[in-house]
């Protein structure tokens, strides 16, 4: 390893600065006293808007709906994603590649395609858009996240352990319960956390499947298009960043150097 030239080093640091500076601005603006414009530098700093935001019933309702949706979607994704991973990690069979493609498709196609496709079906079968349709939509793109995490872990699981378990007289349920499950538990946790973060922050599929329900990202989107409560939006922005980053940092600790985080199914 030779040392990097100054030009390369500066380019790398500038890139990181470019990626992080806007996040820093969000933190700063949550404390600004300015409530009419986006003036920089902020005329003063205050904690006032945190109390105002905490007193807003619409924000709490939106937050609660987001949490419910994310939990339900994650639960479905955990079950289905693990099943696919268990079926696919070592078996070779005809059509395997097509199945992989099928599960990747919701994140390879733009969210808007998934959104409008689900909406057209909701309309066709006369379903009322709401929590149920949102959960269905979110689970669909969360499955691949769980799958990615679990399948990576299963591939590292040594076959000799499974054989040893069978040789010692365990049936396949016991092998699953006492050998496989403990060794994929952190992968399940990581996949679940990522799914939660993905669903909690999702807005594009949500706008098509939510009907009149308001999740936190939809509340935020409305403020983005038609700003009414700028200072409160600033506070919510800081809060949303914190909520989505905590699971990511946890996953980073659970997996080796975030290997399963790469892309991780995170698209908008």
């Amino acid at each position: 390893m030779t040392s990097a030239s100054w030009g390369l080093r500066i380019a790398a640091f500038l890139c990181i600065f470019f990626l992080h500076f806007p996040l820093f601005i969000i933190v700063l603006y949550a404390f600004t006293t300015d409530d009419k414009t986006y003036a920089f530098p902020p005329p003063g700093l205050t904690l006032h808007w945190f109390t105002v935001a905490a007193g807003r019933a619409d924000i709490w309702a939106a937050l609660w709906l987001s949490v419910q949706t994310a939990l339900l979607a994650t639960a479905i994704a955990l079950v289905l994603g693990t099943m696919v991973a268990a079926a696919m990690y070592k078996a070779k069979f005809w059509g395997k590649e097509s199945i992989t493609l099928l599960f990747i498709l919701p994140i390879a196609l733009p969210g808007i395609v998934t959104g409008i496709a689900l909406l057209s079906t909701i309309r066709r079968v006369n379903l009322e858009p709401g929590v149920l349709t949102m959960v269905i939509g979110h689970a669909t793109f969360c499955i691949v996240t769980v799958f990615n995490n679990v399948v990576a872990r299963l591939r590292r699981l040594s076959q000799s352990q499974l054989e040893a378990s069978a040789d010692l007289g365990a049936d396949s349920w016991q092998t699953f319960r006492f050998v496989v499950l403990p060794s994929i538990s952190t992968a399940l946790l990581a996949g679940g956390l990522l799914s939660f973060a993905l669903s909690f922050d999702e807005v594009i599929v949500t706008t098509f499947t939510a009907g009149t329900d308001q999740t936190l990202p939809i509340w935020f989107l409305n403020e983005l298009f038609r700003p009414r409560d700028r200072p409160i939006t600033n506070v919510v922005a800081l809060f949303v960043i914190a909520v989505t980053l905590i699971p990511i940092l946890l996953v980073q600790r659970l997996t080796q150097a975030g290997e399963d985080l790469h892309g991780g199914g995170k698209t908008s």
Partner: protein
Amino acid sequence: MIRRASGVLHGRPWLGLLLLLIPPLLWMGIIYMGSLVNLLLYSFYALDDFTGQIKFEPTLATLQQLFTSSSNVDIVQRTFVMSLVVTIACALLAFPIAYFMAFHTKGNSKAFWILLVLLPLWSSYLVRVYAWKLLLAKEGIISWFFDTLGIRFVLDWILTLPIIGGFSLSSSYLGMFLVFVYVWLPYMILPIQASLERVPKSLLQASSDLGAKPNQTFWKVLLPLTVPGIAAGSIFTFSLTLGDYIIPGVIGAPGFFIGQMVYTQQGTAGNIPLAAAFSLVPIVIIGLYLALAKRWGAFDAL
């Protein structure tokens, strides 16, 4: 029960495989593929001229509208060009930092740099767009920066340029371009970094031993080997720009993008057939792009 089931499964691995695969396949097959097929069907319907309701009779009228109306063709063109420019810019910006991460960091410091790139990627998309609204606003920090340096005239001059300029940064294509590059850049950095990691060091050594100058090694050996990584990253940047409707709505000039058209047609206009027809455009473009990317080896680099 479970015991007995696992007894039945013993010696019949295909049965277990089938039982595991059926529920997820039913979910994806019915809900997702079913919806996509339904979407395709909708693009062959049209609104009734008199009632404004959807007529469930196959017709090519809606698809024809997509290709013949000049404003619709403009929308497709505008979105395509933006996606292409954003992808190129992301690749150019991502390469130096990916190179740095691949060849000049290791162990814990590499993990830390990867985390630095991942954190913005995983923080809320909406909040990151909002941050740029703060940055680009007329009274925002970028204007302040130009003012403080006393070079306000440079910014004003940039804004008078045709096409990319506008009333302010937040209502110009330049501003929109910056936001797109910002939100998708990490998707380009990571696959390029991964493909650089896979380049055998001995190959670079051999190249220089055989007398190649550093820039010859770069252009003739290193760059061709990273094409799969660039192709993999560009799938994301291209596809995500192509379908986005939020960034063009919040920041940028008034011209519509494909995503916005899909959104407004299904919403206020109630014209799901036209929305469906518009959403076929990204599907087709990305389908072609994926086929191309596959030839460049992008799938091995994902």
